[in-house]
């Protein structure tokens, strides 16, 4: 058992238990903070997989921007103290657990049943985590993937305009 495997197992335990904490905590603010912990753990996985740029994007965009937006909305709405509402469909919760168990079993079964890759991921060497790797990735991003990159900018613009219009309806006026 190498040290890398020990780090992986400990971190995956943290990731799974923080996901459970996100699901089952009564307070929405605690849920958001558990999810931040989960995102930071996944960022460490990205570092172990030799993707330092994605790891840093994960921390700044997900754990930073998106979760701060979530916390703003939770506190704006006062949703952190919402009491659990009565279920409209009482059979929904046990059915959800059964369906989730089926999904977990069949996905793990498929992973083991297919022809396995048998690749053992080694820790990235120093060259992967340097500016060289980042420059190579940027060259591919702005060369092969230039059109999707530009479409992403349009998507972000549309989302920004949409968010402003949705929350500002009375001033824009709906005739």
């Amino acid at each position, binding site marked *: 058992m190498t040290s890398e495997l020990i780090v992986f197992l400990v971190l995956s335990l943290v990731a799974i238990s923080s*996901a459970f904490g996100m699901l089952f905590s009564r307070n929405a603010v605690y849920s958001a903070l558990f999810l931040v912990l*989960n995102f930071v753990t996944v960022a460490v996985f990205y570092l172990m*997989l030799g*993707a330092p740029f*994605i790891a840093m994007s994960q921390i700044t965009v*997900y754990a930073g921007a998106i979760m701060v937006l979530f916390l703003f909305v939770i506190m704006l709405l006062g949703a952190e103290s919402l009491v659990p*509402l009565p279920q409209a469909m009482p059979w929904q919760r046990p059915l959800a657990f059964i369906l989730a168990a089926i999904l977990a079993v069949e996905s793990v079964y498929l*992973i083991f049943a297919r022809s396995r890759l048998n690749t053992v*991921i080694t820790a990235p060497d120093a060259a992967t985590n340097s500016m060289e790797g980042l420059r190579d990735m940027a060259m591919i991003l702005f060369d092969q993937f230039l059109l999707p990159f530009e479409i992403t900018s349009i998507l972000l613009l549309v989302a920004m305009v949409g968010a*402003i219009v949705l929350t500002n309806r009375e001033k824009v006026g709906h005739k």
Partner: protein
Amino acid sequence: MVPVDYYVILSAILFTLGALGVLIRRNPLIIFMSIELMLNAGNLAFVAFGRSYEVAGGQPFYTGQIFVFFVIAVAAAEVAVGLALIVEIFKTKKNINVDEMNSLKG
């Protein structure tokens, strides 16, 4: 020395937990967080498979990471619009129970 299957199984477990959260919670904010968890599980599988190609082929392979970059951008856009919708529904209905969001009329 971690086999790539371990990463994929962890990704499957996280995705299942996200799907479970969408099914059992009534608070749309928690449902959004569960969707983020599922997107993140997919990202983890992308990066793990990309790294396994890199290790097997012996040369850098960045396509998986670039896909993750796009998924992060889409997730940011989705959260901005979704949270704006939730705020607007809360202003109209004074609560955010998903069971009561059954009409398109404001």
